[in-house]
């Protein structure tokens, strides 16, 4: 009997031949990510637990992203606590204004195929895009990992998502994952791993895969994995070792179920207020007037996303009285988007380009809205009140759709 990707990673991690779904095991942690919102809480728990050293400072990454730039006085405390903790325990990987945690973890090479990674943010599932087992945890567990380097996990069952064929021109990986979440439901993958396979997936860029792994949590998934390939190796700046190339689900692995999609069947879609699994085709929503568009986040703030938006907005202007806010996912993305002209195109079209960070997606600043306003956003959640009051309507979409809506001042489907 073969194994799925997540089973293989866990087996290797614990030195077992094989693990079974449902089995509870203790894994050795390869890397942890601590984000600025949670740092003071983690530090408090760490000390309360009685630890006096971090198990392996080189495996710890601190990232300030939700609170950058500071918008409230309380934010400063989080930087200070992080800086002091890093200095005291010899943690050198501290990113103070370089972008969103999930983007940096993969982009800066902190995560490699086959790694076991935990982060204090639910979108830690993102690193499955390079074939790592990664998931979000709370600050108490993070404090325990910092002291022990281990964590218990239940081996998840795996749902396979198989996609083959060629995507229509106006469809991005965001449209695919939204549709899949709609099909699974917001809790359809709770406690489970997703594994993406098929020639469509194989042809996708690592960035596109990242969008899908990122959003797996919106179906409740514990993690979401793609088999690492040459593209992955190049992205991570590694050559695949003896273990990594075989890190694909076995033919005879036991999947809980397999969902099969034809790429040609995907169309541009949106998640409607206020559930991520409330999916409708963009064409059915066409004409709804909008007040704001947000392009950014760990879901869709990468170079290819900004390029897709710039392509739509080239030579066009954002509609009157509509705001377009663009927040690149990282400093590197910003620099590359500047070099290729995408930033220039977007700013000329009327966009406000902010510094890389979580921005509006985490709802603290970056374009908060008021009662009755409607926003089209490329991020991962449209929960009630997430971007302002509970009377703000949030529609989630791909960067191409979002850009088209910005120009039209209404929901519209790009060609």
């Amino acid at each position, binding site marked *: 009997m073969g194994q799925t990707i997540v089973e293989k990673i866990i087996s290797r991690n614990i030195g077992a031949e094989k693990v079974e779904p449902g089995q509870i095991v203790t894994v050795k942690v390869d890397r942890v990510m601590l984000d600025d919102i949670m740092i003071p809480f983690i530090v408090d728990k760490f000390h309360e637990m009685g630890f006096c050293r971090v198990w392996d400072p080189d495996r710890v990454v601190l990232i300030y992203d939700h609170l*950058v*730039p*500071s*918008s*409230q*006085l309380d*934010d*400063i*405390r989080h930087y*200070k606590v992080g*800086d002091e903790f890093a200095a005291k325990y010899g943690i050198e990987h501290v990113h*103070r*204004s370089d972008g969103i945690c999930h983007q940096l973890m993969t982009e800066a090479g902190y995560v490699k195929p086959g790694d076991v990674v935990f982060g204090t943010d639910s979108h830690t599932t993102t690193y499955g895009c390079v074939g790592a087992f990664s998931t979000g945890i709370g600050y108490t567990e993070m404090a325990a990992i910092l002291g022990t380097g281990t964590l218990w996990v239940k081996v998840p069952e795996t749902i396979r998502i198989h996609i083959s064929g060629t995507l229509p021109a106006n469809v991005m990986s965001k449209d695919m994952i939204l549709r899949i979440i709609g099909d699974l439901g917001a809790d359809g993958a709770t406690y489970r791993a997703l594994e993406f396979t098929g020639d469509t997936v194989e042809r996708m860029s690592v960035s596109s895969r990242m969008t899908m792994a990122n959003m797996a949590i919106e179906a409740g998934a514990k993690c979401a994995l793609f088999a690492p390939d040459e593209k992955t190796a190049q992205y991570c700046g590694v050559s695949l070792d003896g273990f990594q190339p075989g890190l694909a689900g076995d033919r005879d692995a036991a999947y809980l179920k397999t969902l099969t999609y034809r790429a040609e069947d995907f169309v541009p879609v949106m998640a409607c207020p206020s559930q991520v699994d409330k999916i409708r085709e963009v064409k059915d929503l066409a004409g709804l007037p909008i007040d704001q568009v947000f392009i950014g986040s760990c879901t869709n703030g990468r170079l290819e996303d900004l390029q897709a938006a710039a392509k739509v907005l080239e030579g066009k202007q954002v509609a*009157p*009285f509509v*705001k377009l*806010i663009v927040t690149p996912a990282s*400093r590197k993305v*910003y*620099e590359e988007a*500047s*070099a290729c002209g995408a*930033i*220039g195109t977007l*700013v*000329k079209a*009327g966009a*406000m*380009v*902010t*510094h890389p960070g979580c921005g*509006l997606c985490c709802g*603290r*600043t*970056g*374009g*908060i*809205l*008021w*009662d009755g*306003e409607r926003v089209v956003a490329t991020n991962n959640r449209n929960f009630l009140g997430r971007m*302002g*009051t509970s009377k703000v309507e949030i529609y989630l979409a791909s960067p191409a759709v979002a850009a088209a809506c910005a120009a039209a001042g209404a929901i519209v489907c790009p060609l």
Partner: protein
Amino acid sequence: MGMTIAEKIIALAAGADQVKAGDIHTVNLDRMMSNDGTTHLTVDMYHSKLNTPRVADPKKVVFIVDHNVPSDSPKTAAAQKKMRDFAKEHGIDFWEGEGVCHQVMMERYVCPGELIFGADSHTCTYGALGAFGTGVGCTDLLYGMVTGSSWVLVPETIKFNLTGSLPQGVYPRDLMLTIIGQIGAGGASYQVMEFCGDGAKTLSVEDRMVLCNLAVEAGAKTAIFEPDEIALKWLTDRGRRPKAVFKSDEDARYVKEYTFDLDKIVPVAARPDFVDDVVPAVQVCGVRIDEAFLGSCNNGRIDDLRVGAAVVKGRRISDHVRFLVVPASRQVYLQALEEGLIDTFMESGAIVMNPNCSVCWGSCQGVIGENEVLISTGTRNFKGRAGHPSSKVYLGSAATVAASAVKGEICTADML
């Protein structure tokens, strides 16, 4: 009796042949600007306090959202929505995210000879083009919007004779801070600061904006330069024409005269918590900083970004410093992008934001914490201006701010 430029502008707006300091006149306003710091209150008053709500001439009114951009809270969003809805309903020019209001006004509206009210104290910036711009409150602005007119007390004028030219590494901001340091925070209260002399001819329109913009920090009602060929070319390049080109008469009355030799100006800094507490920058070197800010309607233009970028190029911002770089407008941002300045700032580790008031406004972007120290190219260093009441703000030139960001403590650019 001759008149000064300011008196001539008021006379024209009042339809009078002659005005003199101390007179109160009813004037027609050429333009009114209001931003998101107060417009929600103006709109509320419009709806709740007027017997006959109306806008005399929507074409003379400009609304600019620049203070909290992008919006930082539901309350901000509500205030801005009120403004947006009102502009939409009345056909008022509306800009959001385009840049700091005074920069946008200069780029798109201000013409020599105009009398402009802005619901923001730094409206005095427009004197760089020979316009009379002055800051008012939202009640004044509302009255102006409804009637197209207002009352003004004709101010006295102080002449600032500028000679020589600024040395390398010394900037118009150093000059203006030096002037304010000398005459004091109330040194030109209710008065007009008129800049003239050979030294004035060495200054670009952007340089003149730096001087005029800070005039309110000396209490001035406005500041003004004669619209010379430099100003008129600047205006023509942007496709606009003057309303009137005024020079002060030979026998115009000045209440006081000062002469400043530009050659003698050195890099300076204003110490917390007063803009007129100005000392040579070398005297404050060594103060550890937590944040640095390059931007604002005073010092966020392309010249300033060039100066800052030249300092940080090939260097890293100190680990413990948050260096916010915020171009004053979309046009400035695009120019900086084209020149590679934005890339230079990003590579150095700076935080680059969309054009807005940012740290200078001190309420929602780059706020500083308890006992933190900021060095800024903003307009003010009042107690708590940038965040916690215990925090401290120093004002310096773009070069000093950028150099300090690299070093992690206040230093001048030549000390790196």
